[in-house]
């Protein structure tokens, strides 16, 4: 016996979640691009696109609630739906962090760059890579990959630490740098939070497969 309609709906919520993850990943990438290139138009687009991410979250949530109410899901099905509900919340918040970066790009657009952007894009690349791989782990129910991704959050934290001290150094050197350096610390904070939220996704993958919640990498921040 199969449950064709239910299986299709279960697939649909997971697809929605993956599409949403793609939107978030793109927002992070473009946020950094807008910052680097001082691209005001791109920054405005990211801010507008965040509404689409939010809308996707609520659409997916509605579908999940409908499945719970009408299909009485149990065991692996129930864990799948609960995981999608949690992960879409994390994705939506990551979208907000990307939007935050775009807003800072707007604030810095008329200012000369404080320094060449090297470590911030690197931090963003690590966080985006973690996000992509966490969703790969979800797709393939791969707990080993989920655990490995979690460990990569240390790299994000180290870059955060390094950039923080470097930017404080700029402030100490010249008070004229304070505003720009503060904005850039906000950017790194957004990226650091994205890394933390990816570890939440990884924890959900382990929950999905093994049935228990395990806190896997407690961030330094």
């Amino acid at each position, binding site marked *: *016996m*199969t*449950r064709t309609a*239910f*299986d*299709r709906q*279960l*697939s*649909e919520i*997971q*697809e929605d979640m*993956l*599409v949403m*993850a*793609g*939107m978030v*990943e*793109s*927002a992070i990438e473009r946020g950094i691009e807008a910052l680097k290139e001082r691209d005001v138009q791109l920054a405005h*687009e990211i801010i*507008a*696109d965040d509404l*689409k991410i939010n809308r996707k979250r609520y659409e997916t949530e509605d579908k999940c609630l409908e499945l719970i109410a009408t299909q*009485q*899901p*149990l*065991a*692996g*099905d*129930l*864990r*799948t739906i609960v995981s999608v509900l949690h992960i879409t919340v994390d994705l939506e918040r990551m979208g907000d962090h990307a939007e935050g970066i775009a807003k800072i790009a707007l604030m810095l657009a008329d200012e000369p760059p404080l320094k060449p952007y090297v470590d911030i894009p690197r931090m963003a690349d690590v966080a985006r890579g973690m996000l*992509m791989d966490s*969703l*790969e782990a979800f*797709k*393939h*129910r791969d707990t080993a990959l989920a655990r490995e991704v979690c460990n990569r959050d240390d790299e994000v934290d180290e870059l955060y630490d390094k950039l923080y001290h470097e930017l404080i150094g700029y402030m100490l050197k010249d008070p004229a740098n304070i505003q720009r350096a503060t904005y850039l610390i906000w950017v790194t904070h957004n990226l650091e939070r994205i890394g933390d939220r990816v570890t939440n996704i990884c924890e959900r993958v382990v929950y*999905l*497969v*093994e*049935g*228990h919640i395990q806190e896997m990498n407690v961030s330094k921040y």
Partner: protein
Amino acid sequence: MTEVRVRTRLTDSIQDPGTSAPMLAATAPTTAPRPIIDPPEQSVFGLSELSLWYGHKQAIADIGMKIPVNKVTALIGPSGCGKSTLLRCLNRMNDLITGVRITGSVRYRDQEIYAPHIDPVEVRRRIGMVFQKPNPFPKTIYDNVAFGARVNGYPGNMNELVEHSLRQAALWDEVKDDLKKSGLALSGGQQQRLCIARALAVEPDVILMDEPCSALDPIATLKIEDLLRDLVQQYTIVIVTHNMQQAARVSDYTAFMLMDEQGAGRLVEYGVTNEIFTNPRDRRTEDYITGRFG
């Protein structure tokens, strides 16, 4: 405004859900089968190597489990998996069927209930039963409840016993002014609670329930389920149900049974209900409770 770019890496294996099979791993792969771990509480029943044949047909095979005191234990599984047969072994109801042969052991409070010196009538007094279809006697409500106690020569105050039993079965308020009315005049849900009151009136230790709600509407079903949660403070309850949500709602422990290739029912997985319904260890349990069995 440009369209948001969606990385194909995440979505490359996605097909049109309307035309294709699911493309994601359906559910978590299960790990090694959960060993059948007996509940840690003191047990009322201890079963070991229990098998039963109807003539040449083996109905259950090699069942070993302990049933804890003051808990609701649910037996679930597809039709024909032997769960009702197993339930009926617990108070020797199968003795009444010709051609039945039983091997193995059923110990009730450290007594072997199939030992030659044991009186099956006394077994059934201590281990009462409620059936699928409400089956009140064609007598008054009062006489239905008093029936067993009278047969047993109950020496106490019968009026008090009837009231106490009806209160325990959450029926008293609905029938207290109509005790002389026929039990058959009650609604299906009330009749089933009358049968529960009748079972309680002989002061049993254990109540076996064989799909007690399958003939009832959802409201009557919820009343019985609430009642079970109250009764378990005083009694041990074993319930067979086809309704998995019911098993999930009312039971503390759940046992999943399945027919083997020869058609005999076997215990596949037994554990805390919450675990069985959220994280079963055995693929067959997962398939059954998620509706993908067969």
